[in-house]
């Protein structure tokens, strides 16, 4: 186990790129949860996580140890990525292209695991109200998946479509929902970062 602090690892990663991987191991899941709770979209959350680490890797030589833990620097990049996502409605891939990180699709089994990272309880009421703004197919998919908390195979059966299509509808609906909630100033997270 590497006992160096995040700041030490980030500084060391200039000459020893492998040290950055240790930072990733420590904070990747937390960062994914951070994005998932704000975007409500597993695909967007995964992409934002990858882009944030790519950006951090590409600019690790500019990191300066100011006394704060290195993770603050990482979340600074994450906030920047999230702001761009909410402004443009899509996840940028410039940093991943810059460092040569290959694009990866989110595996099917990861959708539910990432959704599990999101605690919908605090926003359930706001969600129900925002659902009325969504198109019919996405609204129905979200109602079955989020409000009724049904598993994807059952959601697909009720919607009379394939499981992949059901996931896509839920994913798109959540992304749109997150944008609506963001515009209305409703926080999708219980804690404050």
């Amino acid at each position: 186990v590497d006992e160096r602090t995040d700041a030490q690892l980030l500084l060391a990663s200039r000459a020893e790129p492998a040290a950055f991987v240790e930072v990733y191991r420590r904070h990747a899941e937390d960062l994914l949860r951070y994005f998932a709770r704000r975007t409500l979209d597993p695909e967007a959350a995964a992409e934002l996580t990858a882009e944030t680490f790519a950006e951090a890797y590409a600019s690790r030589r500019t990191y300066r140890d100011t006394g704060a833990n290195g993770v603050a620097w990482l979340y600074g990049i994450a906030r920047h990525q999230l702001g761009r996502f909410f402004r443009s409605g899509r996840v940028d891939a410039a940093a991943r292209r810059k460092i040569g990180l290959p694009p990866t699709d989110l595996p099917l089994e990861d959708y539910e695991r990432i959704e599990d990272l999101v605690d919908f309880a605090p926003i359930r009421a706001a969600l129900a109200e925002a659902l009325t703004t969504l198109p019919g197919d996405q609204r129905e998919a979200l109602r079955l998946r989020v409000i009724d908390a049904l598993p994807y195979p059952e959601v697909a059966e009720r919607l009379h479509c394939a499981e992949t299509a059901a996931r896509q509808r839920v994913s798109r609906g959540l992304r749109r929902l997150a944008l609506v909630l963001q515009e209305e100033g409703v926080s999708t997270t219980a804690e404050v970062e």
Partner: protein
Amino acid sequence: MDTEIRFLRDLEDDLVRLAEADAARTVTRARHRRHRTWLGAVAGVVVLAFGIGALAGGGLLGQQGRAAGQASAVLGIGGAPDRGAPVPGSIKALPDLDPVPRAPAGSGSAVTRTPLLTDLSKIVRNGSIALTIPDGSFDARFAQVIAIARAGRGFVLSSQTEGSSSGSLTIRVPSASFDRTLVRLRALGVPTSSTVTGKDVTNQYVDYRAHLQVLESRRAVLLQLMTEATTIGETIAVENELNDVQLQIDQIEGNLRFLDDQVAKATIDVSLTEQHARSAVVLPGDIENPSLGRALQRAVQGFLAVLATVVVGLGYLVPVAILAGVALLAVMLVRRRRPVAT
């Protein structure tokens, strides 16, 4: 990584591969940086050696440069004036062009030229001088050259002009006024090249004189035989022989007269070029056409000259480097011992 989310595990694998590739690149870059540092150091030493070598005037570069300067000056293609060249009017700066040693003034025990040496020394002297003159002064300077030749009891053998800004003259002056004439010519402008040559023809002259004496004796004998001839056959034979001897005498006397004339009068080639004249005058005898062979030869000479200069510079640097190494070693030893002593 301990997570159930496959996406994060895949991303970790990608980052590990990326980090390994970057680490390999970092090592390669560091190696290249080291190589560049060494190359830079070697280049620095070579440049330093070249500079020192050039300052020390070593190698062929100095000679080459001087030779090139002279050549370009003779060809009139620019280049610095030769080092001995004075500014117009500063006659005192001229080197002594008289090849015969002179006695110091006022010295009672001075070595003087013996009459024998004066009579027997037959030296043919030639000179050439290329002058850069102010713009618009060509006609005046051309006339001055003629006047200088006449003042020295000489004459203009030939002349050639190109446009109204450059030209050349060949003048002949008595040897006695050769040096004085050259001094006056130099004062007409800025000399860009100047050469003086002397050819000793004394041996040749003495040989001709000796041969002439023999032939004259033989002619006297033949004339005596002619008066004593009794038959027509004898008379014809002696006369034929006499004709041959007389012919040889005439040839040798002609050669002696030519040598006397060459010794008595010196030839000076004068080239005048206005400062901003478009084309330079080529002195008689110089080669005007460029040659690839000569260019190649000069290139090789230049390469060798630079190499030689660097070698000379290294000769200066090596002892300095040894001294610096010894000093550095001493400092290191002192520093290493200091903690032990304390």
